[in-house]
């Protein structure tokens, strides 16, 4: 199934030639993309633009997870949907658009929200995961499952005029391993605790500008494509020189009242895997397991304090 040496078809050569001739790409990298399986969790403001470029690049299998339906108020930023598909499940609407763009990939519709019960089944079938979701409980869940199943995770978020993106768990490292590191961080290594519920704001409540979340989504596709094309998600072989782990959180600060400037993008240096991390640190194998997550441990809703008081208008 994962044929890494087959010739490309005429249609594939035609569709992908402009990216194949980029220095550093070529046929081998294109075949890696054609053999790759990517799961996009969330078909909203991040997932729509990310999916367009993931599909365009010829990723072989593309799964999309979302339980929502398209609403008219989504369309200013969720550019993979359309007015005529209002009311449809977002996953089906987005896949309709992607098939028009590129009919060659296999598209898999998961028309449900990700939950502790289905997360491992959803994620296990893919090589790389994009977190395009919109709430902290889901973000911690996705990261934990990616640690447990050894999947690289490209995570982005955006509200109002701000955006953040970071590549996590790449290359994936066995849970609890610290010796021989530093190793890449997981979501919990970077963001130990969620904000209190009154400081968590969603795009629906706090607003969002289309190009802000769009830029983050496109950047997610960019990181995903390079990881798969260059095998950055494959742990280095014994003796192979290891790229230094330099986890970077990219911050995008859009301003409505001033043009792009020196502070628009800031690359922030994050710590590597932490000994103290609940999910991937020392002793984590006893705290976090696939069976535990299914049983409700940890309790993500409780951890993120849902429903714990009125919102106060600050992120």
């Amino acid at each position: 199934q994962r044929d890494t040496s087959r010739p490309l078809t005429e249609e594939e050569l035609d569709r992908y030639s402009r990216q194949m001739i980029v220095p550093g790409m070529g046929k081998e990298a294109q075949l890696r993309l054609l053999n790759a399986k990517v799961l996009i969790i969330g078909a909203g403001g991040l997932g729509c633009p990310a999916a367009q470029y993931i599909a365009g690049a010829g990723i072989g299998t593309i799964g999309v997870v979302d339980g929502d339906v398209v609403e008219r108020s989504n369309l200013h930023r969720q550019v993979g949907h359309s007015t005529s598909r209002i009311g449809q499940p977002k996953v089906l609407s987005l896949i309709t658009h992607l098939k028009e763009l590129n009919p060659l990939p296999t598209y898999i519709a998961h028309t449900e929200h990700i939950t502790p019960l289905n997360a491992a089944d959803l994620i296990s079938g893919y090589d790389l995961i994009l977190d395009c979701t919109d709430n902290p409980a889901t973000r911690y869940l996705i990261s934990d499952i990616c640690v447990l199943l050894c999947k690289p995770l490209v995570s982005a978020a955006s509200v109002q005029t701000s955006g953040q993106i970071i590549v996590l768990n790449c290359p994936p490292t066995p849970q609890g391993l610290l010796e021989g590191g530093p190793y890449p961080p997981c979501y919990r290594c970077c963001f130990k605790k969620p904000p209190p519920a009154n400081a968590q704001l969603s795009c629906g409540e706090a607003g969002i500008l289309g190009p802000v979340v769009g830029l983050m989504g496109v950047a997610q596709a960019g990181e995903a494509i390079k990881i798969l094309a260059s095998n950055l998600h494959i742990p280095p072989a014994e003796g192979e020189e290891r790229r230094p782990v330099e986890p970077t959180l990219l911050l995008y600060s859009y301003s409505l009242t001033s043009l792009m400037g020196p502070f628009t993008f800031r690359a922030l240096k994050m710590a590597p895997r932490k000994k103290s991390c609940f999910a991937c640190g020392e002793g984590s194998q006893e705290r976090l397991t696939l069976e535990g997550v299914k049983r409700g441990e940890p309790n993500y809703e409780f951890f993120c304090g849902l429903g714990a008081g009125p919102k106060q208008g600050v992120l």
Partner: protein
Amino acid sequence: MSDPKDQTIDITVDFSGGLEILFSNEKHHELSVPAQDAEGKPANVGFLINYLCKTLMTDPRADLFVLGGELRPGILCLINDSDWELEEEDAYVLQPGDNILFISTLHGG
């Protein structure tokens, strides 16, 4: 020489991801902060956080920045663009010219 208690350090403090709302909606601040805390120890980031609450915050909701004596969960502190956990967290002693950035973790998408 001036009294060491009157000496100050020039630093810049930035807020992002919505936190700027608590600080007169300004993302970038150039500050001269005391070089020592009340006990005469060199000013560190922990001191700075309290100092910002007292002198720079314009919004009454201090609990959106500090909670239980610590930086509120969901806020990252970056010292010269590095996660403060790569430094000594709140024990990091301020140096002239330092940039301290506070960002709020985002979850929307």
